[in-house]
């Protein structure tokens, strides 16, 4: 079979994957705390080709080319989403702008220094107990209260306090105010509530090592050294009465959708041309 047939088929599959990712971004245009994903393509490893047969075949390889492309990974775009005011006391939003010595991060949260070392901007998250008891992380701050007073996500997962236990609050939430560092205070007096409850805010040094699980939760898959609680010097704030919107850009998503579709179509045309060539080879050249 002609090599190019498989290359074009690989191209179609890859553009299909990219289209799927962009569609998921568009579907989550209004999901609070959603971070857009970008698909990254990679070419197959290169192969050397050489001429064979004929009268005077040139010695050595002619050159190399890639035999296809595949969708390699899905990168999280961790840009801060806009804050929407909801006036609901249990809605919390994180504004995170953690600085690292001497790094000026670009829009995608990456910095490359003069020596070529890559540094990613750390991000802050709320900490939530996952279904298996291990912590999960989220930026979706639309919390609710269960019957026993535990603060939970919309899905029922308990939100953890700074001591690692689920946060239990028995006062009505309209009397509670949340300070910028996550501590819960009495709204009237400004004094901390009994027991000094405070939300656990987690700082993840390399957000690329977070795996999205759905329902707004992320799981950390990196080394334990790269994750810790937010310290007072980090530029992280919790705002009460606000929700962080999704950071999906609808115009860019539409453009990505169109380019994926047209690239898919271009690959489809290539396959059809190969089909015509094979048609000639089978039906005309080989005619008896």
């Amino acid at each position, binding site marked *: 079979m002609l090599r190019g047939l498989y290359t074009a088929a690989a191209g179609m599959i890859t553009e299909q994957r990219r289209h799927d990712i962009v569609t998921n971004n568009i579907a989550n245009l209004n999901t609070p705390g959603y971070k857009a994903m970008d698909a990254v393509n990679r070419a197959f490893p290169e192969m050397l080709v050489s001429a064979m047969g004929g009268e005077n075949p040139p010695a050595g390889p002619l050159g190399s080319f890639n035999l296809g492309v595949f969708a390699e990974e899905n990168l999280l775009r961790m840009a801060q989403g806009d804050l929407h005011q909801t006036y609901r006391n249990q809605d919390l939003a994180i504004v995170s702008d953690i600085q690292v010595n001497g790094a000026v991060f670009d829009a995608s949260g990456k910095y490359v220094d003069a020596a070529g070392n890559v540094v990613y901007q750390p991000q802050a998250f709320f900490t939530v107990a996952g279904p298996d008891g291990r912590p999960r992380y989220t930026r979706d701050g639309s919390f609710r209260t269960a019957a026993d007073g535990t603060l939970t996500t*919309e899905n029922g997962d308990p939100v953890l306090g700074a001591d690692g236990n689920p946060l239990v609050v028995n006062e009505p939430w309209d009397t509670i105010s949340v300070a910028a560092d996550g501590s819960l205070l009495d709204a009237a007096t400004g004094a901390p509530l009994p027991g000094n409850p405070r939300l656990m805010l987690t700082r993840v040094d390399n957000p690329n090592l977070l795996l999205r699980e759905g329902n707004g939760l992320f799981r950390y898959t990196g080394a334990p050294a790269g994750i810790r609680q937010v310290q007072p010097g980090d530029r992280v704030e919790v705002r009460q009465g606000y929700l962080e919107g999704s950071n999906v850009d609808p115009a860019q998503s539409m453009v990505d959708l169109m380019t994926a579709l047209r690239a898919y179509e271009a690959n489809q045309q290539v396959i059809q041309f190969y089909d015509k060539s094979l048609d000639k080879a089978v039906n005309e050249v080989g005619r008896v």
Partner: protein
Amino acid sequence: MNNSIAAAAASVAALQQKLDLLANNIANADTVGYKRKTSVFEDLLTSLQPQENAFNQPGRRTPIGFTQGWGARLAGMQIDLSQGSLQPTGNPTDLAIEGNGLFEVRTTGDLAGPPAYTRHGDFALVPTGNGDRILVTNSGQPVIGQVNGVDDFIYVPDGYEMKISEDGTILAYNADGSDVQDLGKLKVVQVTKPDLLQEIGDNLYGVPANVNPADVVQTAVLSANGGGGLSVRQGFLESSNVNLTDEITDLVSVQRAYQLSARALSSADQMMQMAANLRG
């Protein structure tokens, strides 16, 4: 291929539900004591496509595996209990609560039955046939008051006028003001966990069967002159807390999100058509 269509279809369904919620809010923009509902979206489960270790090429940033999302859903609906504005009506059976509180009623005429709560203070006095009148909501549910801390219905004798002060004390005056009867206090409850209130129709709220009402509401102690932020106003009605500007703005953004998802759906459909037409 199916991933795009499934994600776009799920998102369109969720947006439809949100549209229904907004329409319900707008329809009740004039209902006395109506509290608007809000909702949030959440992304659906994400599946991890397994990748072999050979995929760990230099320059790769994320762990092995390709994550794929499946769209969004409407995660939960919340009741927004913020205060609506008070409209004076002058009608002595119209009551309004100022602050975080609800009236308590019984849905059947049985004092021992399950309680329901409401802000719809458009009450009426209905004759019982025993020489007095009972205070009911305009759908017929009797209102609860407290006499010495015990729940009871509120009966006003014929020929007497009911006067309710700001701390909920109910007094009945006869025509020439010579006889004053103390009918107890109107029961007002404070909501500690608004997330657990459920709408049960007729503008009433209830508590789910498996939840103890004491966890969700507690009896409020009102002080005279409305101190403590909670007071009962006779002759006023509380209008709905729906702000039409906010609802219409949400409507516009939901419509645009719907349009974008529908566009993604038709783009996926075009791709499927191209695959189907590969061979003529």
